[in-house]
C-alpha cells in the first residue's frame, strides 16, 4: 500500500460532558476506500467533521499529508479535502451549474475570477455524475437523490485528493445507491482519489470498501478487511445483536440479511 495520507492520533472530542470520541487513532493510505461503520451515535459523523476541520476544538492530532490539519490555510486544505454532508441543505437557491462552479473556489485567484477552464471542469464533473441534463435547475427543486449526485459533482469539480463522505447513498433508492457507489469506485480508480466514507449500511461497506473500521461509543472496536468484519462475534461486539449471513450470489462475499420480525405470523422460521 502507498503512503499514509491521513494520520489520526488520540483524537478526542467532548460536547458538554459527553465524550463523543475517545482516543481514536488510525491512518488512511492514499487511494484507499476506507469505510467507517458503527451503530447510531457512535461518533461517525463527528469523526468526519473533525477530519474536514468543521470541528476544530478536538483533542489529539490529525495529520493530512504529514502536516497538521490546523496548519493548513483554508484554500490549501480545500484542494486536498472535500466533504459531502449527510444530505445537502434542501433550500439551496442556486442552479446546479452555479453550485458546482462554487466548488472551484479554492482554485481561484484572490480576485475570484472564474475562467473558462473552471467552467470546463465543472461541466466535466456534471457529465460524469449525469447531472448535466438538469444543470440549469435550482437545487431546491431536485429530489434527494439528484441533490446527492450534484453534491458529488461539486466534490469532483473541487479536484480534491480525499473525499470525506457522510452516508452518501444510504437514504437513496436502489438504483441511485448503485449509481453513486459505481461513480465513487470509478473516481477512486481513475484519479486515485482516497475515499473515506461513513455509513451504517454494513452491506454497502462490505461491498465497496477495502478497509473498514467500526466505531462504538466513540472508540474503535474493529479495524480490518470486509471479510474480517463479517464475523458473528465481531458484529455482535459492535452492534450488541446477532446477525444472519448469506453469501452474495455473484461473489460469495458474506453479507447480512435483515432479521425477521417478532410475532409477525407471515414470516415464520422454516
Amino acid at each position, binding site marked *: 500500500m502507498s503512503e499514509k495520507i491521513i494520520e489520526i492520533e488520540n483524537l478526542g472530542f467532548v460536547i458538554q460532558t459527553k465524550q463523543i470520541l475517545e482516543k481514536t487513532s488510525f491512518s488512511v493510505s492514499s487511494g484507499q476506500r476506507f469505510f467507517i461503520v458503527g451503530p447510531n451515535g457512535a461518533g461517525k459523523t463527528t469523526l468526519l467533521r473533525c477530519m474536514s*476541520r*468543521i470541528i476544530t476544538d478536538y483533542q489529539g492530532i490529525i495529520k493530512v499529508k504529514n502536516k497538521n490539519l490546523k496548519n493548513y490555510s*483554508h484554500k490549501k486544505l480545500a484542494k486536498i*479535502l*472535500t466533504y459531502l454532508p449527510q444530505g445537502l441543505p434542501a433550500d439551496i437557491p*442556486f442552479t446546479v451549474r452555479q453550485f458546482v462552479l462554487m466548488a472551484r473556489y479554492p482554485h481561484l485567484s484572490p480576485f475570484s475570477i472564474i475562467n473558462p477552464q473552471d467552467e470546463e471542469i465543472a461541466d466535466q464533473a456534471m457529465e460524469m455524475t449525469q447531472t448535466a441534463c438538469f444543470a440549469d435547475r435550482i437545487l431546491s427543486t431536485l429530489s434527494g437523490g439528484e441533490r446527492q449526485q450534484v453534491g458529488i459533482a461539486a466534490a469532483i469539480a473541487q479536484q480534491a485528493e480525499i473525499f470525506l463522505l457522510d452516508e452518501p447513498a444510504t437514504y437513496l433508492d436502489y438504483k441511485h445507491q448503485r449509481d453513486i457507489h459505481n461513480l465513487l469506485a470509478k473516481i477512486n480508480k481513475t484519479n486515485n482519489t482516497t475515499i473515506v466514507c461513513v455509513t451504517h449500511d454494513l452491506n454497502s461497506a462490505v461491498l465497496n470498501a477495502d478497509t473498514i473500521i467500526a466505531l462504538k461509543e466513540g472508540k474503535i472496536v474493529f479495524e480490518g478487511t470486509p471479510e474480517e468484519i463479517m464475523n458473528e462475534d465481531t458484529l455482535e461486539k459492535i452492534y450488541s445483536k446477532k446477525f444472519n449471513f448469506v453469501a452474495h450470489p455473484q461473489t460469495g462475499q458474506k453479507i447480512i440479511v435483515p432479521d425477521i420480525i417478532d410475532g409477525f405470523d407471515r414470516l415464520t422460521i422454516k
Partner: protein
Amino acid sequence: MKKNTAFILIVIFVLLVMTVTPFAGLTKIPFSVLKNTASDTTEARIFYSLRLPRVCTAFLAGAALACCGVALQAMFRNPLAAPFTLGISGGAAFGAAIYVIFAASMPIYCGEILFSFAGALAAILLVYGLTKIKKGFSAGTMLLAGIAVNFFFSSLILLLQYISDFTQSFMVIRWLMGSIDVTGYRVPISMLIFTSAGVIIIYFQSLKLNLMSISDEMAITRGVDVKGTRKIIFFATSIMVAAVVAFCGPIGFVGLMAPHICRLLVGHDHKILTPASVLFGGAFLALCDTVARTLIAPAEIPVGVITALLGGPFFIWLLLKDGDKSGT
C-alpha cells in the same frame, strides 16, 4: 426575465430617480441650471447646495444600508437580518447619542462616526454572542437577540435623554427619527468615503457569501475562512451603519427590503446581487426622501417614518412567507 436585463433595468431605474428627484420640490427648478453651473440665482443655489447634496446623501445612505442587508442576510442565513432588525442601528444610535450629549464639544475628527461605529460594533458582537450561547441558532433566536439588543440600547438612549437638558434631548429625538437634512457637500463626501469603502469590501466577499449563504459547513469545506470573513463583514457593516446613523439617523427597513427585491430580480449570486442591491437601495432611499420632503411641503416628514411605513408591512409579508423556515 434574464438576469442581465433585470440588472440593466435597475440601472435605468437608478438613473431615472437620480435625474428626476433633484428637480422635485416646492421651488420649481428650471433645467437651465444644469447648463450654467456658475449661475448665482436662488434656484441654482437651492439646486446645488440643498437638493443635489441631499439626493446624493440619501442615495449613499440607502446604498450602504442595502449592502449591509445583503451581507448580513447571507452570513446569518436569515431573510430578516438587516442593520435595523439586528439592533446594529440601535447600537450606532446609542453611540451617536453619547457623542451628541457628552462629547460634541470635544475636538474629535468625525467624532459622531467614531462613536456610532463603536456602538454598532458592540451591538453586532452582542447579537452574535447571544446567538452563539444557544447552539445552532435559528432565524428566530437571532431576531429575538436583535430585538433584545435594540431594547437595551433604546433604554440607554432614554436614560441619556432623561439626564440631558431639553435642547440636547430634542436634538436626539429629532435625529432618531431619521432624516437627511444636509447642506453643502461635507456630509455627502464623508458618506461617499465610508459607503464606497464598505461596498468594495463586501463586494470582494461575494463568492464567500454565496457559500456561506448555503451553510458554514459548506463554506469551510470549500476553503472559505469563515471566521475571518465574519470579522471582515462585522467591520464593514459597522462602519457603513455608523456613517448612515451618524449623518442621517437610524433609517430602518431599507437594508431589509432592497436585497429581497433584488433577489427576485437578479437571483441569489452575490456577484450580481450585491451591486444590484447597492444601486437599488440607494435609489429607493433617494425616492423615499423626496416623498418625505414633498408630500406635505413646505413641512417635512422624517424619511425614517416613510421607510418604516413601507417596511413594516414588507417585514410581516416576509415573516409569513418564510414562517415555515425561520423556526419560530
